[in-house]
C-alpha cells in the first residue's frame, strides 16, 4: 500500500431530513484529519448515495440521519452496495438513533453508529482503525 494514499470517505445525508450540522462538522473534522472527504449535500436517495460512492471510489460511507428514517435508509444503502458488488465499502452512521435500533442496524451491515455527544476525534480514530485505502 502506498503510504500516500488517503482514506476517501463519502459523507451522505439520506432521505428528506434537513439536519446537516453534524454531517458538515464531521466532514470538516475528517478533512482536518487528513481524509479525502466528499459530501453529497442533502436529500439523497439511497440509490444516489451508492452511485456517488462507486463513482468517487470511496473507502467508506458515513450516513447521517436525525429524522427517524435510519431504519429504512441505512440497510437500503447496504443492500444496494451488495447489488452493485461494492460491499467492500465500509458503511457507518451517526445521528439521532435510539440505542435499541443500533443492534438491528449493525446486523444489517452498518459497522458503527455514532450517537450525539461523540467527539470528532473518536470518529476519526474509528475510521483509521477500521477503514483502509483500498488501492
Amino acid at each position: 500500500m502506498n503510504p500516500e494514499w488517503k482514506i476517501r470517505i463519502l459523507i451522505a445525508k439520506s432521505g428528506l431530513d434537513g439536519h446537516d450540522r453534524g454531517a458538515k462538522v464531521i466532514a470538516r473534522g475528517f478533512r482536518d484529519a487528513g481524509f479525502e472527504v466528499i459530501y453529497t449535500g442533502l436529500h439523497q436517495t439511497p440509490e444516489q448515495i451508492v452511485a456517488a460512492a462507486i463513482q468517487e471510489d470511496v473507502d467508506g460511507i458515513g450516513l447521517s440521519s436525525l429524522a427517524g428514517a435510519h431504519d429504512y435508509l441505512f440497510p437500503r444503502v447496504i443492500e444496494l452496495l451488495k447489488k452493485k458488488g461494492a460491499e467492500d465499502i465500509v458503511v457507518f452512521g451517526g445521528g439521532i438513533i435510539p440505542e435499541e435500533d443500533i443492534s438491528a442496524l449493525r446486523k444489517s451491515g452498518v459497522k458503527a453508529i455514532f450517537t450525539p455527544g461523540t467527539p470528532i476525534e473518536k470518529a476519526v480514530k474509528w475510521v483509521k482503525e477500521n477503514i483502509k485505502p483500498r488501492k
Partner: protein
Amino acid sequence: MFKEDQLQKIEEEKKKWVEDLSKILYENPERLPRFTTISDMEIKGLYTPEDLKDLDYSKDIGFPGIYPFTRGIQPSMYRGRLWTMRMFSGLGGPEETNMRFHYLLDSGETGLSIAFHYPTLMGYDSDSPMAKGEIGKCGVAIDTLKDMEILFEGIPLDKVTTSMTINPPASILLAMYIVVAEKQGASKREIGGTIQNDMLKEFIAQKTFMLPPKPSLRIIVDTIEYCTLEVPRWNTISISGYHIREAGATAVQELAFTLADGIAYMEAAMERGLKVDDFAPRFSFFFDSHIDFFEEIAKFRAARRMWAKIMRERFMAKNPRSWMLRFHTQTAGCSLTAQQPFNNVIRTAYEALAAILGGTQSLHTNSLDETYAIPTEEAVTIALRTQQILAEETGVANTIDPLAGSYFVESLTHRIEEQAWDYIRKIDEMGGMVAAIERGYPQSEIAESAFKYQKQIDSGDKVIVGVNKYVTDHPTITIWRMKPEIEERQLRRLREVKQMRDNEKVKECLQKIRKASQDGENLMPHIINAVREYATVQEICDVWREVFGRYSDPGYF
C-alpha cells in the same frame, strides 16, 4: 444614564476595587483564563454604571409598549396576559396527533402548534417514493384536506390559534386550514394563527427547500397579500432564527441573519406594491432560547429594539404595530443531550426562564426525550408543566422586564445589537439576503461557528454535563415508536381520497394553479379551491416544481 460627577466617583471607587482585586488574584487566580458565553463572547467580572454611560434611558430602554420596545411590546406584558403555551406537536397520522392536541389542551396548553412529517414539509405525498421510511416519523402526515379534517376534529378553530411549521407548501396548508375552519362554520376573518412561511432561513439553515429563492419569495408575497385582505388575524410569516441557531450560529448571527431575512421580506412585499403599515403588523418572529442565560435575554431585548428601528427608520412605518417584534420561542433542541436525559428537564427550565425574562409572546418547551424521538405523553407533560410552574409559582411574571437596568444585561444587550448591525451592514453591502445566500455567506458563517463550538466541546473548553464532564452510565428511557399500521392507514386513506374525489375538478383546479403560477396572479384563491376538491400537497407542489424548477443543496461544508 448617570451624571458626570457620579460617573467620576464610580470610576475612582472602581480603581480602588481593581487594585484590591488584583492583590487577591495574585494569591488566588480566577478559575478560567477567559470567561465567555456559549457564543464565545467575552464577559467581564463586573459591570458598573460606566458600562452604560452611552445609553439614554428614554431613547434606548424606555417603557413597555412604547418605541423602541426594549422592555416589551405590550404595556402590561404578562400582568395582562401570560405568554401562549404552545407545544410543537405532530406524530404518526392525524388521528394520533388529534389525540395529542386534545390531551395538551386538556392539560392547560393555550395554543396549538403543528409539526408535519418530512414528506409534507418537502411537498411530497405519503405514496411518493421519496416518502419511503419517513411517514409519520418526524411529525404528522398530511396529504389532503381529509387529513386536516381529522387533525382538527373536536377543536373549534374560532377559539384556538394554531401555528404551523411549514415552509415550501405553507400556502397549501394555510388553504387547508381555512377550508377546515369554513366547514366548522368559522370564517377566515375570525381565525388566528401563524404559518412559518420563511423560505430564506430554509436555504440558510433548516434546509426544507423546494423551489429556488425567487419563486419561493413570490409565493410568500402572495400569501402576505392575500391574508392582509382576507385573513386579517393571521400571522403571514414567522421569520425564524431558531433553525439558524440550531444549525450552529452564535446568538449574534441568529439575531442578525433573522432580521436581515425580515428586511428581505419587507422589500419583497413593498416591491409588490403593498403598503408597509397594511402588512407589517402581521409579521412575527421565532427565536431559539439557548442555554447561556443572560446572552439569550440580551438577544431578545436587542431584537425588539433593532426591529423597531428598522421598521421606523428604514421602512418609514407609521403604525406602532408595524414597529413591534412579536416572537415565539423554542428552547434549544441542540442543547439537549442523549446522555443522562433527565438533565434535559433542567436545561429546558432555564432556557424557558430566559425566554420569559426576554419577553416572549409564546413558548414551546422541549421534552427530555427529544434527542431520541418525538416525545412521549409523559415527557411532553413535564415540559408543559415547566412553563406552568414558571408562570404560576415562581413569580417571574409579576413584573415587566425585571432585568432592565442591570449593568450587565443592558451592556450585553447593547453589545449584541452593535455586533448584529455589523452583520446587517455587511449583508446590505452584498445586495441583501438573497444575494448573500446565493454566495453562501450566512451558510458558511454558521458552519464555521458550529465547527468552532464542536472543537471547544472536544477540548473541554466548553462543558456539557454528562457529555464531556461528569460522564456516567445512564439507564435507557422509554421512547415513542411509530406503529407500523399508521403508515398503512395513511396510504389507504390517500388512495380512497383519490378515488372518491371529483378528479376532473381537481385537474381543472391544478390547471388554474399552473396558469396563475405562470401569469403572476395571486395563487391563494386557486390553492383554496384546489384543496377544497381534495387536491394533494404533492399534486400542487409538482405543478410548481415543473413551472419554477427545483432548488438543490450546493453541499458545501
